[in-house]
């Protein structure tokens, strides 16, 4: 599904070069739920941005759902973002003066769906996140957890191949965080591939596969048994 080989990403400013990613290798299979952990500044967000085609990379190769990313132009990259990727941000990134319906509608507009098809998908996505009755609400009328669920609905509506989440529960209290995690697990159970950056070890443990980023490199390839209710035993690959 997602295959990165020897990816490096260097941020250059006038005086300093930051190797945000170096020799980064990762292979994610369809249906996997991967938790990415690591210290602050280690390159987790950079990895996710590269994976989500929001950022470019300097070296290496990246294949997403069988498509080689190298050399694609803006039209092709935008299309891939639109069709294959669902992004979930820490800050939800909803447009404050659009209601939920219009927020979720946004990615679908660039897909060229008919009004009927868009509506079907929006209603569907809102149902999946349990907010079907609030389509006309503004984001500000919802709690943080609900807003994040709207953001997830927006990511889901396009039926993407992969969901990328950067600290999706980072701004939420533990109860709301649990609701969002449950939603992600449900989605994973129904077949979604998910990569999630998190700082919460419990959350990481609840997830099928854990990956640690340190200093721009994957240093730990431990796989946990895919149950999320009980503590799991790490297995070295």
């Amino acid at each position, binding site marked *: 599904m997602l295959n990165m080989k020897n990816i490096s990403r260097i941020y250059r400013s006038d005086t300093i070069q930051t190797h945000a990613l170096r020799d980064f290798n990762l292979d994610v299979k369809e249906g996997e739920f991967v938790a990415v952990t690591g210290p602050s500044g280690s390159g987790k*967000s*950079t990895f996710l*941005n590269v994976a*989500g085609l*929001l*950022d470019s990379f300097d070296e290496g190769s990246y294949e997403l759902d069988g498509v080689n990313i190298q050399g694609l132009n*803006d*039209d092709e990259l*935008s*299309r891939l*973002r*639109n*069709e294959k990727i669902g*992004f979930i*941000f*820490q*800050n939800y*990134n909803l*447009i404050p*003066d659009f209601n939920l319906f219009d927020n979720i509608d*946004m*990615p679908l*507009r*660039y*897909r060229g769906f008919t*009004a009927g098809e868009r509506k079907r998908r929006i209603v569907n996505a809102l149902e999946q996140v349990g907010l079907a009755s609030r389509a006309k609400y503004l984001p500000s009328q919802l709690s943080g957890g609900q807003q994040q669920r709207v953001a997830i609905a*927006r990511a889901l509506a*396009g039926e993407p191949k992969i969901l990328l989440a*950067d600290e999706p529960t980072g701004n939420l209290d533990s109860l709301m965080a649990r609701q969002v995690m449950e939603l992600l697990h449900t989605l994973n159970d129904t077949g979604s591939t998910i990569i999630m950056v998190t700082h919460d070890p419990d959350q990481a443990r609840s997830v099928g596969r854990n990956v640690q980023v340190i200093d721009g490199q994957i240093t730990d390839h431990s796989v946990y048994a895919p149950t999320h209710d009980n503590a799991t035993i790490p297995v070295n690959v």
Partner: protein
Amino acid sequence: MEMFNYYLKLSVRNLIRNRLFFILMISTLAIGVGVFLANIAIIKTMSSDPIPHKSDRIFNVSLNVWTGDNPDAKLIEVMRYDDAMHILKNDIATHTMVHYQSQVYARDINSKSLTRHQAVVRATTPGFFPLTEAPFAYGGVWQQDHAKQIVIGDTLNQQVFGGGNNVGKALEIDGKAFEVVGILKPWELKPLYYHAAYGQKFKTTDDIYAPIETALDNEWAINVRSTSTDRINSVSDNRGKNGYFIQAFVQLENPQQKNAMQAYIDNYSQHRQEQGEVLRANENRLLDVNQWLDHKEVVDERMIAFALATSLFLAVCIFNASSLLLARYHSARFETGLRRAVGARMKDVFYQGLVESILIGCVCAVFSLFFGWLFLQISTRLFPALERTSDIDFSLIAIGIFVALVTSFISMLYPLIRSCRTPLSTTLK
């Protein structure tokens, strides 16, 4: 089309949400465009062709017959009665008119009221009407050179008779009766090419058109230039003297006709020179209407300088609006980044901006036309000389809309390009 509607919806929402900002920005542009339009309106009217379908066949006749003693003086564009009669009677041109301007006070001879109306008189010949295409509402032109018959314009007809067909009635001028034989429709000629001299090129058309002989017979006042040795005792006395007060225009259909006329006037002034009258070298001219208007500097050079200034002012307004927009796009980069992240192409962001600029352009066009109109009102108040030089017509409105659209697009372009290039990873967290 669906995307266009979507973008339009987004733009309307944007405009409403940031209305204060957009009012400021659109006003900035609209003032620039408005001033520019007002200026164009004036120049356009000043430089317009008063009689487009035949302006290249109508010629002013300037004769080299000044008998004054300064051979280097600029050619004067008026001639003596005798010269005018030669031009009039040579039968070369299709139509010929000679004319001078006078002024009288007139009233309806049958009216109980003794109120007299000031009336500008064009003392001329029947050729005047085909040469200016003055449109008759009733009646026609006089039949005899000395007839006490006149044609009147619509304004005077309204003032004196209250309008309508008054052919056959008479006006009283200086105690004498003059029969109205023709009445013109409301009529404008901009510029008033036959009277482009004396800074009166944007005056209204005349009130009374009378046979030139009749005007002289009745001593209707003239503005005459004469050489110093002559003593002229009355208006009609000019017939035999060196009084210069008549202008001539002719209609010449083709180069042969024009050459014939040129040869005629060259001969004529040669002949006068041989009689010892004319002191300087030949300089006889046939200028067609547009050459003639250029020669009379109908479009003031100051106006052109002003046009340059208004163009620069418009440019400043565009820069201003552009920097305002730059700031706004900067603050809107979260939404732009988000749209890009969920799959909008750079193109899509650009199209959205384009639709927004069209919307802004339309609003701006309305404001611009209003400001343009306002500036015209103000300038004609402040500078009465500009009165009647500025028409807002359909083509000007079209120009206004076009310029507003273009300027709003230009001011939007750079901010929009910057906005398309918003880096995605740094704007979204």
